[in-house]
């Protein structure tokens, strides 16, 4: 994996799996962890913002959006046990984690500015700070602090922050350079 001499993930995984006689999945997992820990880099789609949004690189955004939509649907549709526990889980995630996570992603879009644990702690802490502020603002609106206004405002804020993070990440992605020649 010298600079400029790039193999594909499949090639590396096949070579290592054949040499060490271990399952390809296990090799792929170890390679993924090397990538996640910043030991290697992956180059995939063309470096432009649109490609980022609609490729695997932008998957985090769509998964987050799906979680937001699932939480809204669970609040609207689920009222009784046993599915109510899904509503509890998604509700807790949407109030205690997602607003802060979206804010952290928007503030630190590169991904390696903070350690994973710092990112988690900040996500929970900022959620606890942001959600009461939303409640404070709602208190001075005609709608008040009720279920529907809270549902709409917190999720709208989360989506707005996630979209901001997506735009910033897409720009950073487009500014990166392709180093592989092969």
């Amino acid at each position, binding site marked *: 994996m010298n600079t400029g001499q790039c193999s594909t*993930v499949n090639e590396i*995984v096949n070579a290592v799996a054949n040499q060490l006689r271990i399952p390809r999945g296990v090799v792929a997992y170890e390679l993924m962890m090397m990538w996640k820990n910043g030991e290697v880099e992956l180059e995939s789609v063309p470096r432009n913002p649109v490609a980022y949004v609609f490729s695997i690189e932008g998957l985090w955004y769509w998964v987050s959006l799906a979680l937001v939509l699932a939480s809204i649907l669970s609040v609207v549709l689920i009222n009784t046990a046993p599915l109510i526990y899904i509503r509890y889980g998604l509700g807790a995630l949407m109030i205690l984690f997602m607003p802060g996570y979206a804010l952290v992603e928007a503030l630190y879009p590169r991904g*390696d500015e903070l*350690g994973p644990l710092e990112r988690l702690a900040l996500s929970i802490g900022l959620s606890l700070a942001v959600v009461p502020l939303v409640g404070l603002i709602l208190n001075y609106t005609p709608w008040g602090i009720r279920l529907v206004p809270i549902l709409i405002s917190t999720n709208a804020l989360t989506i707005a922050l996630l979209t901001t993070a997506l735009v910033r990440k897409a720009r950073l992605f487009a500014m990166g350079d392709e180093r592989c020649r092969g």
Partner: protein
Amino acid sequence: MNRWLLALALAITLTAWITLAQAQQYGALEAYQYIVKLSRLGANVSSLVDELNRAIYLESQGYGANASLIIGNVIEKATSELPGAEEAHLLIMIGDYASLAMAVMVIAIIYVKRRELVGGLWLRVRGSNRVRGGGSGKPRTFLFNAEVLSVVLALVIVLVTFVAAQSFVGANTQPFTAIAILGPSGKIGGYPSTVLVGQPINLYIYAYNHMGVPTWLVVRLYVTNNTSLEPPLNATPIAIYQRVLLNNESWLIPITITLNSTGTYRLIGELWMYSPSNLTLTYTGNYVQLWINATQVMPTG
């Protein structure tokens, strides 16, 4: 001789009437018992409760024969539903345990095979990507970091413990019944304190069942000028209202009373119930009362 015959005929009629009334009461209680049993098995007993309530109403209006027919019908329906309900209850219980065991097994398999599963999935998505050395050296993972995972695991354990405790506590909440008196508009407030003699007073009695099963509630209404008696009163009520309420169901009873002489009166509503466990009429310990002054002339100001 004729007198003796007349007395004998009267005695026989009275005995027959009492026996019939007792039989109807017993039949209604038997139907109530079946309804409670079905409800405990998780069956929908709304229609049976409606029918039993109709029978109770008809019996209170003196249509005993019609009430008996309905009660017989309820018992027949309930006994025919009982085996199916027991079977369904058993199946649901087995299904719940099987689902739980399955979920535990799936989680265990996923944990043991996590490397192959996650790696295989990642390979499908990223297989064609090109790999180069010279990364930043800083971790960018969120979900695959051991520290993050340990914190998430701790949170999940706390959450699951809380939810499990909540579901156990929720299933065993203290059963209770409640009674309240509401004003003329059917809401709290607006109670009359001073009324004219002969003036009709419109109020509402509110009853609520949270016994976990349908419960036969009986409201006994008294008007007394005795200011010191504590319920349950040993007197004849001015009205008795009774009905089977589904779990979490409330019941609003409109009442109209008239005070025929001046003085200070207490309107007392006692809540009794046929216990779902032993079917005996028992005082719940809950009552409501309203103090009312009856005067000939309304005070001004």
